[in-house]
C-alpha cells in the first residue's frame, strides 16, 4: 500500500495559502479595533453617566442614557444602558429600540437578548391589557424575519466565515485527490463537503443581507398610543389596532408627504406619522 506524502511544490503552495488566510482575517479585526477604539473622552463621559445614574431619578437616568446613546451610536454599552434606563422609566418603545440596536451591534450577547426578550414580554403584556380579544400578537411583518435572519451577523463576518470555509473545503479537496482510498480519505471528504456547505450558506446569507439591507427599513413604534390611517391624508380617520403598539417592530415601505407607509403583522400596510417611529439602523455613515 502506498503511503501518503506531498511533493515539495504543493507543500509550498499550501503553506503559502495557509499563511495568507491566517494573517488576512485577524488583521481585519485588529484594524477595526484600532480604528474604532473608544476615545478617552467617551470613556470618561460614559463613566460620569454611570455615576450620575446612581443618584438621579428614573426619568433623569433615561434622559442621560439617551443623550449618551445618541452621542455614541456605535457604542453598544451606551445603547444597552439606554434601553435599560428607558425600560425602568416606562418607555417601553424606546427600550426596545435601543436594545434592538444593541443586539444589532453585538449579536452574540446573551444578556442583550435576554433583556430584550424581557422588555418585549412586558410590552406584550401592556398591549394585551390595552387591546382585548388579541391575546397574542400575530407576529411581525414576514419580510422582517428575513431581515433579522440575514442581518444576524455583520456583512463582513458572513464573508469571512464563507471565505474561510471555502478555502478549507478547497484545500481538503486537493488533499483528498492526493490520498489513496481509506478511512482518512473519507474523513477528509466529509469535512470538505461540510465546509463547502458552510461556505454556501454563509455567502448566501451575505447576499441576503445586502438585499434586505437595501430593501427593508425596520423601525420601532415609540409612540405610547400609536394610531394609523388607511390613507396618507389628514381627513382619513385615525384608527387603532392591537398589532400597532408601543414597542412593535415594523417595516417602513415608503413615504408620501409627511406620512410614512409601514407594514405591520399579516402584511397590512398602513400610514402613520413619522414621529411615531424610530429607525433601528439609524446610525451615522462611516
Amino acid at each position: 500500500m502506498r503511503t501518503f506524502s506531498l511533493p515539495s511544490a504543493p507543500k509550498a503552495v499550501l503553506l503559502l495559502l495557509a499563511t495568507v488566510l491566517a494573517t488576512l482575517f485577524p488583521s481585519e479585526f485588529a484594524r477595526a479595533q484600532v480604528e474604532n477604539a473608544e476615545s478617552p473622552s467617551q470613556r470618561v463621559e460614559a463613566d460620569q453617566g454611570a455615576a450620575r445614574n446612581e443618584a438621579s431619578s428614573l426619568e433623569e437616568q433615561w434622559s442621560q442614557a439617551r443623550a449618551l446613546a445618541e452621542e455614541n451610536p456605535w457604542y453598544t454599552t451606551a445603547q444597552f444602558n439606554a434601553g435599560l434606563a428607558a425600560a425602568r422609566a416606562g418607555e417601553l418603545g424606546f427600550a426596545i429600540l435601543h436594545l434592538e440596536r444593541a443586539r444589532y451591534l453585538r449579536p452574540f450577547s446573551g444578556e442583550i437578548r435576554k433583556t430584550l426578550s424581557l422588555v418585549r414580554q412586558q410590552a406584550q403584556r401592556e398591549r394585551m391589557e390595552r387591546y382585548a380579544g388579541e391575546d397574542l400578537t400575530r407576529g411581525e411583518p414576514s419580510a422582517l424575519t428575513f431581515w433579522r435572519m440575514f442581518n444576524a451577523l455583520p456583512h463582513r463576518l458572513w464573508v469571512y466565515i464563507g471565505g474561510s470555509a471555502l478555502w478549507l473545503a478547497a484545500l481538503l479537496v486537493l488533499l483528498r485527490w492526493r490520498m489513496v482510498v481509506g478511512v482518512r480519505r473519507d474523513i477528509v471528504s466529509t469535512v470538505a463537503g461540510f465546509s463547502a456547505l458552510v461556505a454556501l450558506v454563509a455567502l448566501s446569507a451575505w447576499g441576503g443581507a445586502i438585499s434586505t439591507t437595501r430593501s427593508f427599513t425596520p423601525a420601532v413604534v415609540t409612540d405610547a398610543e400609536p394610531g394609523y390611517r388607511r390613507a396618507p391624508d389628514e381627513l382619513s380617520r385615525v384608527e387603532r389596532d392591537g398589532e400597532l403598539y408601543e414597542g412593535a417592530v415594523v417595516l417602513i415601505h415608503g413615504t408620501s408627504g409627511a406620512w410614512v407607509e409601514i407594514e405591520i403583522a399579516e402584511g397590512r400596510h398602513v400610514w402613520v406619522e413619522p414621529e411615531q417611529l424610530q429607525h433601528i439602523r439609524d446610525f451615522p455613515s462611516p
Partner: protein
Amino acid sequence: MVGASHNSVPTRSAAAPAPLALTLLALVALLVGAGEAYAQVATIDARLSARTIRTSETVTLTIEATGDIHRVGAPESDDFTVIGRQSQTSVSFINGQMSRRLRMDFVLAPRRAGTLNTGTVAVYRNTGESETVSGIDIVVTPGHGNTPAQSRSPAAGPPAANAGTPTPPSPNVTPTFPPLPPPHSAGQSGASAQGTSAQAPSSTPMYAPHRSEGNSRPQIPAPLSPGMLPVNSAEGAEDLPIILTYVSAEELVVGEPFIVDYVYLAPMWGSGFNAVDLSEPAFRNAWFRDVSQWRGNQRRRLGQQRINAQPWDAQLLRSYTVVPLREGEFEIPSMSVNVEARSLAANRAYEIESDSGTIRVRPIPEEGKPAGAPNNLGRFVIESGLDEQEARVGDTVEARYTLRGFGIPAMMSLPALPAIDGAQLLDPEDTEVTEIDPESGLPIFAITRRFRMQAQQEGVLTIPAYEVNYYDPWTASWQSVRADEQTVLIEGVNTEAIDLQSQEQKDEGEDWMGQLPPPEPARSSIAWTASLRQRGEPWLGSPLVWALLCAPIVLVAGAGIGRRTLKKRRETSADRARENAGRDALRGLRKLSYSGPASFTALSQTLRRFVSIRTGEQAMGATHAEFEALANRNWAREKAEPLCELLETLEEKRFAGASEADFQELRQRLIRWIEGEAEAS
C-alpha cells in the same frame, strides 16, 4: 323648533298568491327548507374593544354571527348597562343557499369598578332556537377619562334595533349601587346641605332623597302629555302611519338631561299596519340611553288620538334620556320604521321616517358661579364617612364622600382635599354608578371618592369640610352641597406600619423590572461586531476579497481539469502504443541480425516488450511461470502455448548457445506469431 311631516316611501309590493301558486310555493319552500337545514351551521364570534377600562369609559362588545341568524339579544349583565347598539347585516348566496351575517356592536358602560363580566348574549335563529354566548371578563378601574365629552362620546354611536321583536327585558330594572356609607352616628362627622339640597339617609335608594323633598325630583311630563313639546307636526298626515317626536324641554344648558319621545301613530281606518323593523336614532355630541321600558311602563300604548278629526292609534315607539355635551344647535335625529300594510288584495311595505329637528343648548351660566368652581351640573346630595374613628400613627385612614343625584358623572369634577396636618394624603380612588330613575327616566348617578391618608403624628386628625358647587338646571341657579369636617383620634404607634406609597411604587415595578440586569460598565472599545458594521453596510466586498473568494474555486477547478487532462493523455498514449506494438516489434525483428548469444537476448526482449504493451501487464522480467499465466489470461490456448514454447526455446538457446541458423529460424517463428496475432486483433 322645526316642523316636519312624515315621509312615507313604498318599497316593495307583491300580488296575492293564487291557490295553485301557493301549492308550488309550498313545494319550493319545502326544498329550500331542506337546503337551509343543511346550511344552519352557524358561527358566533364575540370580542371586546378593550380589556381594561375606567369606570368613566365605555367598551364595545361585538357579536358576529353567520348562518340562519334572526337576531342577537342584548347582553344580560348586572355589571354593565347597554348605552348604545349598532347592527350590520349582510346576506350572501353560496351554491344557492342563503347565509346571513349579522354583526351587533353593544356599547357598554360599567356600573362599578372591579373585574366585571359582560354577561351572556342570546343569539336567535330563524328556526326559533337560540344559542348563548358566554360573557367576557374585563377589568374596570376607577377614574375618569380625559374630557367629559370624549369619555362618553362612544355612546353617541348610531344604535339600531328590530321593532318587530320585543325588546328583551333589561337587567337594569333593579338598580345596583356600591355599598353605601354607614349612617352617621354620634361621634361621626355628618354632612349638611346648603341651598336646595339636603343630606339623604344612606339606606335609601339613590333617588329617594328627592322624593322626600317634594318637588326636588325634576318633573318630566308623561308621553303625549301637554308638557312634552312636539318637534314635528302631523300636518299632511293621510292614511299612512307617522312618527311624531316630542322633547321635554325647549331650551337647555350643556349637560342638562331631557327626554325625547318618538310616538308612532297608525290610522285606525283602512289597512292594518304592522311595524317590522326600525332604525334607532343617533344623538351626536351627547350621552343618551334608551328609557322606553321605564316610560313605557307608565303608558306603553298611548291610546287613541284625534288628528284631523280622524282616530289614530298612538304607541310609544322609543324614548331616550339625552344629555347634550356641547353648546349650540342640538340635533334631534330622525327615526324610521318599516311597516307592512295588510289587506286582502296585497301586502305593501313602507318606510316611515320622521324629520329631524333642533333645540338650542346654552353654556352653563356664569352668573352666581363661585370663583374657581368647575362646571358641575345636576342636582344631588352628599354623604360622608370614615372607616375608622381611632387609629395609630402609621395606619391608613379612609374618608369617603358620596354624591348622589340627577345628572351624569361626566359632568362632575370633584375637588381635592387640601393638605392635612399630621397626615400624608395618598392618591384618591373614585367609584361611580349611573342608572335611570324609573319615575322620571332621567339619569341618576352616585360617585364615591375615597381619600386615603396615613397618620403621621398622634392627636386629633381633622379632615376639613368638603364642599361641591354645581349648577341646578331645573332651578336655574348655582347651588352647593357640603360635608362637615370629620375627626379621627390618633393614639399610639403602629410599629409594623410601612410606607404604603413607597411600597406600592416598589410593588409596581418589582415584577419584571427586578429581572432587568444592571447597567454595563463602560468598555474601552466598541464590540468587534459593531466595528465591522461601522465600516459600512451593505458591504459588497473589495477586489481583494473577491479574489480570495474566487481563488479556491479556481484552484480546485484548475487542479481538477489538470488531473483529467493528464489522465486522458495517458490513456491516449497507451492506446496508441498498443495499436503500434505489432508494427514496432516486426520492424525491430526484421532489422535484427545475428551477433552471437546476445542476439537471442534481443529476441526475448522484443517479445516481452510486445506482450507488455499488448496486454498492459508487466511481462519484462517475469518468470516463465508468470509469463505463461499472463499469456493464458490474454490469449486463447492455441495462441498462448506456441508463445510460451517460443519463449522457452529462446531462453534455452540464449543460455545454451546456438548457431545463426537457429537464430534465423526462431526470428522467423516469432515474426509469424506476431503477424498472426496482429491480424487476429
